[in-house]
């Protein structure tokens, strides 16, 4: 697990590029399953907003087969994207989820994954 989502937003430098930052957050906290949640992604490069035509968060559970839960985000300000979704409860008791952030920049044909975060939800 590389993202303490209940402590605040998580950040990644995709491909080891120190100039690029993908910041991922979920609210409200604590992040609980089976409730409506607001997902946000902030994408920056060299301190400037990355403008994208399509941004989404895809949720999956490591080690447990689930249907793809894809949450589309819409632009709310420069480089910031938000959308609503739900994290389902796994009755096995597993609580670690993986969020894959994809974005498509202007001129690109398709979205590509840029960052992944592993986080734990509250029971």
């Amino acid at each position, binding site marked *: 697990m590389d993202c303490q989502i209940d402590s605040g937003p998580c950040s990644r430098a995709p491909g080891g590029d120190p100039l690029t930052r993908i910041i991922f957050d979920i609210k409200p906290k604590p992040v609980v399953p*089976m409730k409506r949640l607001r997902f946000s992604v902030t994408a920056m490069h060299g301190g400037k907003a990355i403008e994208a035509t399509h941004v989404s968060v895809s949720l999956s559970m490591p080690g447990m*087969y*689930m249907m*793809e839960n894809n949450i589309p985000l819409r632009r709310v300000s420069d480089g910031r994207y938000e959308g609503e979704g*739900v994290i*389902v409860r796994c009755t096995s008791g597993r609580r670690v989820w993986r969020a894959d952030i994809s974005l498509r920049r202007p001129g690109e044909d398709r979205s590509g994954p840029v960052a992944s975060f592993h986080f734990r939800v509250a029971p």
Partner: protein
Amino acid sequence: MEAGYLLSFTTGLLGGFGHCIGMCGPVVSSYYLYSEPQGASPRSTARQISSLILFNAGRISTYSFIGALAGLTGSFVNTAGRLAGLQNIISVIAGAFMIWMGLGIVGIFRTGSRLEQRGGLILKGVGAVIEGEGMWRFYPVGLLLGLLPCGLSYSVFIGAAGSGGMLQGMVFSLLFGLGTVPAMLLVGSISLVAGRKVRGLIYRAGGIAVIALGILFVIRGIRAIAAV
């Protein structure tokens, strides 16, 4: 939406083997094991297949109903919120039945007939489903087990909620249910064969495993009820 339907069916197909067998398989196995007691004269192949089909039809009916509700409201949270409490209770009830059936498998008691004798419509109904001989009883069991809380089916109902309508939501979930059929048929078939072929200690060990899994289902359900 056609791509969505294909995804839903594929999810059922892959999830059936990768998820349902592990999560729901124990309940299904215990019911089939209990319904084909050691030493009983085996049912005909046609009756066995019919019972498997009826069980799966019940399960898929429930999925379709929830999918239709999710599609109608357009919101998984609203649908799940209304069903979550019921599903957790079903988990506790299913667990209690597994413990009951496990005790029956190990030979401690078989209580269904006693329930039927004691009267009361609900008790008679429960007794008939648990202990009865008719094939029809597999359908209501499927209906109930379709309500078990399950992360995989929840994720499908999210898709149904976003499908754009009641009919689309129903078809979306129906296709998922159909996709899970091969895996669940496999579990049921193995259990039926085991019920007839497996003897002695192994049969009783299966009963003990069913009791342990029943306790796990009860604990899961109680935990989920406490978390809501």
